[in-house]
């Protein structure tokens, strides 16, 4: 198991380095169209071939990984923080406030997000750079994805509040804020970690789906979501297994995250 962790961590470091050094490693710009070799097979110039517009798949994978591995965890962090604040506070305070906050959370969960996102897109300006569109997309995902996690955290905080060690701390004269900061939040960490890691692949896939609504990362900037969308046109008739490279990398990276993290992080 130790070896598995070392391999997983090494792989993640390698991927992170490749993303950071994409400007030096990538054989071409992510947006440049080599129109004479569109849909090309892997070659020495294009290690993973070219996409349907002749763009180098390997370069797009590197830059796409950079965008997704930076912005998806940022969105996951935002949603986990919101979940911790809203769910943790509600569970700790309990009573009417908890019921009120949870009712609001349920309402939030029941909203028709698809239509709401379409409305949000209609309100956004059209002339935004691809990078801004990427930031807007993941910020939206982060600020909307907290509700389910908040419910879990609220339940956990409620349990912790009634636990013996919190009673003992309270009996020892610890007040509300200190109790929350020193005793409750540290014990919520495993749940928060789990929510954080679970959110990352969910947000990456959500970004791919949002592309269908015109809300995703715009062309020519690549993202894992956008690269996965290319598999839409994959069919039993085309024999281009290298098209699966982004999907394979996505699966391996998520698996490596899970292997690399200490087991206790997922004990919740």
């Amino acid at each position: 198991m130790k070896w598995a962790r070392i391999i997983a961590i090494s792989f993640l470091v390698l991927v992170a380095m490749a993303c950071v050094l994409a400007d030096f490693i990538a054989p071409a710009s992510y947006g440049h169209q080599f129109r004479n070799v569109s849909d090309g097979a892997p070659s020495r110039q294009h290690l993973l071939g070219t996409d349907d517009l002749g763009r180098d798949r390997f370069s797009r994978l590197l830059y796409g990984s950079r965008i997704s591995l930076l912005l998806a965890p940022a969105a996951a962090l935002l949603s986990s923080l919101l979940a911790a604040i809203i769910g943790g506070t509600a569970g700790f305070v309990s009573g009417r406030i908890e019921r009120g906050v949870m009712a609001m959370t349920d309402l939030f969960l029941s909203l028709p997000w698809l239509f709401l996102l379409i409305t949000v897109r209609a309100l956004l300006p059209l002339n935004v750079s691809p990078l801004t569109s990427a930031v807007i997309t993941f910020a939206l995902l982060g600020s909307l994805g907290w509700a389910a996690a908040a419910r879990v955290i609220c339940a956990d905080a409620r349990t912790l509040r009634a636990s013996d060690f919190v009673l003992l701390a309270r009996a020892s004269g610890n007040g509300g804020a200190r109790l929350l900061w020193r005793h409750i939040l540290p014990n919520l960490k495993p749940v928060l970690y789990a929510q954080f890691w679970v959110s990352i692949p969910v947000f990456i896939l959500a970004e791919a789906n949002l592309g269908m609504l015109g809300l995703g990362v715009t062309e020519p900037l690549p993202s894992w979501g956008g690269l996965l969308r290319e598999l839409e046109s994959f069919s039993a008739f085309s024999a281009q297994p290298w098209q699966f490279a982004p999907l394979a990398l996505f699966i391996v990276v998520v698996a490596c995250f899970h292997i690399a993290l200490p087991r206790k992080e997922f004990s919740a």
Partner: protein
Amino acid sequence: MRRRILRSVLLSFLVFRAAFAFAQSSRELRFCLRSEPKTFNPLLVADDASETIRYLTGGVLVRLNRLTQQLEPELATTWKVSDNGKTITFKLRENVRFSDGTAFSAEDVAYTVQQLMDPALHSPTGDSFRSGEGRVVTQVVGRNEIVVTFPAPVVGLDKLFDQVAIMSAKSPEKEMAVLGPYRVAENKAGAYLLLKRNPNYWKHDAAGRPLPSIESVRLDIQQNRDIEMLRLVRGEIDLINSLDAEYYDKLVAQAPGMAHDAGVSLDSEQMWFNQVANSPLPDYKKAWFSSTNFRRAISESINREDLVRVVFRGHARPAVSWISPANKFWFNSRLQPHPFDPKAALQALTQDGFKMQNGVLHDRGGHAVEFSVITNAGNKYRERMATMIQQDLAGIGIRLNVVTLDFPSLIERITRSFDYEACLLGLVNDDLDPNSQMNVWLSSAENHQWNPNQKTPATTWEAEIDKLMKAQASTLDVNKRKQAVDKVQEIVWQQEPFIYLVNKNAMSAVSTGLHNAHPVALRPQVYWNIDQLTLATEVAKSR
């Protein structure tokens, strides 16, 4: 012993079943519809699936031959349009019966025309006939002759009857009693439709055998194109009426004998700039978009050949004008596609005061030239075209932001709020007559996309287009009409309110077992001559 008997009974049953199924399927043409038909009423057809049913079951007075693009007699043996273009007289075929046995007469034509023009029915087919206020008068002259008079001249009147399937005035089966080659025998909602040969269909082949040769047509509802292709290659279906470039190439690799490219179609892909005077765009952008030099420069910076080669894999043609070269008569063959010439484009922009600074184009007021183009999300061909145009325009220092929107949002922007800068969309065209595009070219029209609903034409060239389009609509002299339409094409080529990008090819797939199929560019590409099609087994039988 008992087990052996059971096994042989089972085996014989399976052999019999397989043989029966083969015999059945060999007399049955199979293909897929992408959705269920919304209606069986031929006058209310507005979707592709219903259109297919109408074509296969409906009997029409005249039929446009999709290959020669000429009108041919069907239920009408002769017809004559009056000099003023308001009246058409049909002489009808004798001894024709509906599928339920009801006799066909001029009364049925009168009934159909009255239904068609009934404002309460809101028939999309009827809209093409509405040229002026007033009632349509049908005069039954005898059992086999009818005169139809419209309140105002209708351009291309006889051709419009290609879309009008005649309904029975007396049959208790109403619209299910048909005069076409097939009748609807079974409709399994969401699964399939079975059409059986119309026993009373009037056509016979040269040897006097009743047509159509194929006994039944099974239409499976199938949305997934991958599955449709797999079924074709496995021999479970006989044709795919419309293929896109990607699937066409895949089929060529798998089964080259099945793939057919009938050449350029009537459909076009184009982009345009928002020129609405009261749109919420800044004034300097309005000035760019209303400049002919700017539009011409953008057009000349787009490499159409690359769009054809990369996006459509060679199965398209650089577009020239609003009439496709597939429209043999009306296309202005003197016009050529705008060449890809970024140098000429920059020169044209310089005339308008644009300057290149550090690789970025700036206008006279110092604004960097940047605009967005919207297109509908999910259409990968348009998304790819927009991305290629993005790179082409970067070559002359223009930053283009590609925005994909869901269709309702897009329509809201281009028809109501006018909050957009440029739009890339396509036009699916079924009608050969340019008069069908009056609602696009008149400056007062709703579909005059770049600047709709104008009270008076905003530019002199739009006023000229208005004049020419009205002139062609008010004469029945085909040569005069052709001159006017040619001139409109020239003005549009010069002014480029629509920057025409490509005309897609009409591609289809036909199994090797289906004979007499001659796929064409006009819809329905493969089964337009349905009563002439034969399956392999019938060919063998007739020999």
